[in-house]
Every structure is written in structure tokens, then in C-alpha cells.
């Protein structure tokens, strides 16, 4: 199981604390985009957008790649991995809980079966 340090989480939260940056993530969730396109979309300067993207990049939420003169941004691996790791751990905990619920359910079934046998036995004797 992959483990994540608090530093990573802090960086993610800091990155997510800004409305524009959350908007950028949403936007990139739909499609990759260049810094210029993002700057236009969010009505800010290219320099301003570069800063926001830099913060997201540092937190591992976004990756960028320069092709020619255009820097393209896309969602980074961290967020999804972290969520997947959490969900897996959550699943394991429920699985552990349910395995014990299986035992309780089995006991109840057996009890019911015995009661039924007793009743049937009585009926037969009658």
C-alpha cells in the first residue's frame, strides 16, 4: 500500500485552498489545456496563471509539458492515486467488519435452524 506523508497532504490542501486553482483542476478534469488558454478562461495574465499552475504542479496535482512554445497542463497523478489508496483502505476496513458480521449472521442462521428443527420434531411427535 502506498503511503502519503502529511507534507504531501499539506501541499495539496494549500494548492486547493484557492478558487482559481480549484477551477483550473476542474477545467483540466475535462480536457488538457495550455497556460495561455487557462489564463484567458480565468481572465488573468499569463504570469498569474503560471504561478497558480506552479503551485498545483508542486503539489503533484498537475503536470506540465512544453511542446514548442506551448506549455500544456494536465491533471497530475497524485490526487487520483491518493483517493484510490484511501478507497482501498476503506474497503479493507469494511471487509474486516463484514467478515465478522458473517459470523454473527451464521450464528443467527444456526439458531433459527435449530428452533425450526425443534418445532418440526414436535409436530412429528404430535
Amino acid at each position, binding site marked *: *500500500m502506498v*503511503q*502519503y*506523508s*502529511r507534507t504531501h*497532504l499539506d501541499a*495539496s*490542501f494549500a494548492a*486547493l485552498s484557492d478558487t482559481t486553482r480549484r477551477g483550473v483542476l476542474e477545467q483540466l478534469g475535462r480536457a488538457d489545456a495550455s497556460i495561455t488558454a487557462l489564463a484567458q478562461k480565468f481572465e488573468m495574465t499569463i504570469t498569474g496563471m503560471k504561478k497558480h499552475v506552479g503551485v498545483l504542479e508542486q503539489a503533484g496535482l498537475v503536470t506540465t509539458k512544453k511542446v514548442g512554445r506551448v506549455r500544456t497542463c494536465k491533471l497530475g497523478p497524485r490526487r487520483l492515486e*491518493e*483517493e484510490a*489508496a*484511501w*478507497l*482501498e*483502505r*476503506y*474497503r479493507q*476496513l*469494511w*471487509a*474486516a*467488519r*463484514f*467478515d*465478522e*458480521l*458473517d*459470523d*454473527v*449472521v*451464521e450464528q*443467527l*442462521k444456526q439458531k*433459527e*435452524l435449530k428452533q425450526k*428443527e425443534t418445532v418440526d420434531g414436535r409436530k412429528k411427535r404430535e
Partner: protein
Amino acid sequence: MDARKESEPARMKNRTNVERKSERELVVTRTFNAPARIVFEAWTRPELFKQWWVPKSCGASLLDCEMDVRTGGKYRLVFGAPTSQQMEFFGRYVEVVPPTRIVWTNDEGGEGGAVTTVTFEDKGEQTVLIIHDLYASKKALDEALASGSTDGMPETLDQLDALLTRKP
């Protein structure tokens, strides 16, 4: 109907599935080899509930468990582990329909806690159990997911923390 022999080898455990169904929804699914009325009983009778709700592997224990399982009733669970503070979870049963459905609120975090719906789908000799958590917002679920990511694996209340943010 033929009764199962005691000597029958342990069956395979049924698989537990977890899925983030949408930005605000988390869904857990699991099949049980018993009719719904039995699974429902194990879920709603406190003395039975206590036997399975806190897995032995997590090291914590259920110190207190009050459950008034009926529409409008309340619940309160208190957990403890040797090395950690006690944790308390509470809320209200919004809807209880034996043996098919339980809906409760998770109020320990204040307003806007997730609402949990458990459905017991009776399939005769089996029950498909579906736990559906509906969070107030995408942000609320994202934060719940993030708070579950802690450094070590097998610590007790950290696990519970993640797990119990939506209860019984």
C-alpha cells in the same frame, strides 16, 4: 430443504466493493449468505451489532453503544483504544424500514454531515447489502477522503477515524 452439514469447509468470503459513485457519493456493496431479516437483525440489535462493528484487527473497542433503531430514534457510539483519546459518533435514524432499509445522519461533525442509507436487498438465501453515503458537497467528501490518508497503516484510531466518519 437440505440442512448444511457442520463439517462443510469454510466458504470463501464474499467480496466487499467500494466505489466513489459521484462527487458526493460513496457506495459500499457486499453480499451475505442469509436472508435480509437475519442480516437486518444482526445490524439493528445492539448486543449483536457490538460483536462485529469494530473489527478485532483494528485494536479499538466499542466502549458505549446506544441505538434506538426506529424512525426518529438516536444512536451514540463511543470508541476507545489504549493509546488514543475516546471518539464519539452520534446521529439520528431518519428512516427505519425492517428489514430493508435504514437511513441515518452523522452529526458528530456538526451540520452538513453525510447521510448514510443502508439497503438490505433480499435475494432469498442471500442478501445484497448496499451502504450509500451522501455527502453535503464534493468538498466534504474530498476532505473525508483526505483525512483518511495517514502515515502508518495499522494504527487503530486513525483507521477508525477514516472508517467511522459515517456510522451505524
